[in-house]
């Protein structure tokens, strides 16, 4: 059944993509100015990019996102679980989260740069900071939403805390974790762009700004398209994970 529905879905996506290109082409004709090249020119520029160059830039960006997401998940899961399972820790940490959550994390960019320099650390840290609070809050609420009775049978047969965590708490909280990642991934990619403007010679952000400085507009647009593609692939990845781990809800 899934396969039957997948084909029209793909066709629809393709159709929308073609329409967007058409709008772009009409805008190009109307504007008739080098700051907006035609889709054809951009795809040609994309084609001419060296495969090695593209792989290096995309690879760097993906690595930074991956590291940031992983760090945020590890720390967020730990704190979120602690807050979800222990009323004492929740009372202690709740005000901390409550006070720091509304701070626009992007405003911390200069602070992070001051403390950790312009290198990789500050880039990964920024992505982590953006994601961390959302992960903490959603893990805590997800863990709290698991009814106590779900643990009863395992408790009565003498399961250890670790066994209860692997079999109940983690899978029970996984759906909220996945939806949080899906939502915050978009923000993380935007922040990645900002952090790649400075202090690096690799990454999609650097690539786009570099083309912009060289007034190579087709290449700049090609970079934007590639960046979008990376984001799109990441979204698909979360969907695949969701499909694999959330089968039980269907």
């Amino acid at each position: 059944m899934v396969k039957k529905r997948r084909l029209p879905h793909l066709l629809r996506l393709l159709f929308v993509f073609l329409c967007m290109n058409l709008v772009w082409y009409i805008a190009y004709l109307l504007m008739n100015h080098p700051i907006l090249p035609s889709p054809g020119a951009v795809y040609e520029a994309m084609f001419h990019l060296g495969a090695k160059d593209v792989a290096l830039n995309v690879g760097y960006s993906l690595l930074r996102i991956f590291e940031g997401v992983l760090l945020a998940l590890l720390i967020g899961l730990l704190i979120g679980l602690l807050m979800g399972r222990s009323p004492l820790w929740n009372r202690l940490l709740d005000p901390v989260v409550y006070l720091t959550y509304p701070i626009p994390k992007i405003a911390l960019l200069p602070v992070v740069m001051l403390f950790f320099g312009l290198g990789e650390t500050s880039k990964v840290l920024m992505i982590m900071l953006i994601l961390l609070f959302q992960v903490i809050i959603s893990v805590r609420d997800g863990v709290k939403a698991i009814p106590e009775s779900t643990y009863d049978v395992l408790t009565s047969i003498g399961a250890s805390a670790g066994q209860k965590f692997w079999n109940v708490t983690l899978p029970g909280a996984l759906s909220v974790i996945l939806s949080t990642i899906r939502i915050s991934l978009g923000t993380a990619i935007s922040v990645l762009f900002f952090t790649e403007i400075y202090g690096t010679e690799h990454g999609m952000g650097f690539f786009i700004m570099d083309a912009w400085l060289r007034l190579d507009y087709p290449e700049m647009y090609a970079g934007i398209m590639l960046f979008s593609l990376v984001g799109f692939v990441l979204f698909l990845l979360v969907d695949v994970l969701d499909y694999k781990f959330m089968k039980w809800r269907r």
Partner: protein
Amino acid sequence: MSSLRNSGLSIKALQVEYKSGQKALGQVDFTLPEHGIYTIIGPSGSGKSTLLRAVAGLLPDYEGELLFNGKSVHDQETLIGLVPQNYGLLPWKTVRDNIRVAMKITRPVGGSREAIEADITHWLQSMGIAELAGRYPLSLSGGQQQRVAIARAFAIRPAILLLDEPFSALDAITREALQQIFLDNWLTHPATALFVTHDVEEAILLGQKIVVMPSAKHDSPEILDNTAVFAMKHEKKRDSDEFFEQSKRIRKVMLAKW
């Protein structure tokens, strides 16, 4: 000592209080012989579920003693199989995985993978749900989920089996089919069992003795002998005179105590 070692489940002066100091369970005293099955019947709020939760080790605070063959019920050696009213299945695990998890926790060492899998298949078959092994609980009906929960409870080969109104959310036909299946399996694997119900008929059909819980906490429960009905063939119980007499007797106790 031998009498102690095979004395079954003895509940001595068990009392449970809520944090507010109010009594959740008045004093309960009875001994359930090893490989015996008692049904517990009582009005809502009489503490029958509380009694079961105390034995299951889900209540940290209670007064009194819970012993199995002379040792604490919550000893590592005494395995307890619990069948809660809401089935207690993990929704993110398939039927087979639900049973496998329980078995792996209770038998951490020994037992090859093949033996475990064969055991799971055996229990699914005896519950009549072999074809549901790969399904997730949310896609099953209540009756099917309860069969899985019972299969899981039997599969870990518990010393004590606790059932908390397992069939009360099911329709009459499903309930009768499951009572029969449960009893057949219990007779071949007679774990020491406590069966909580609010259905008089069910209490008579499934218990060697029937514990009638009082609604007042200062009262003590009345224990009725039911061996005459229990010894009959399951299909014949309902139509027998003894069944009729027994239900009259229970109703009389209910009138006095509830």
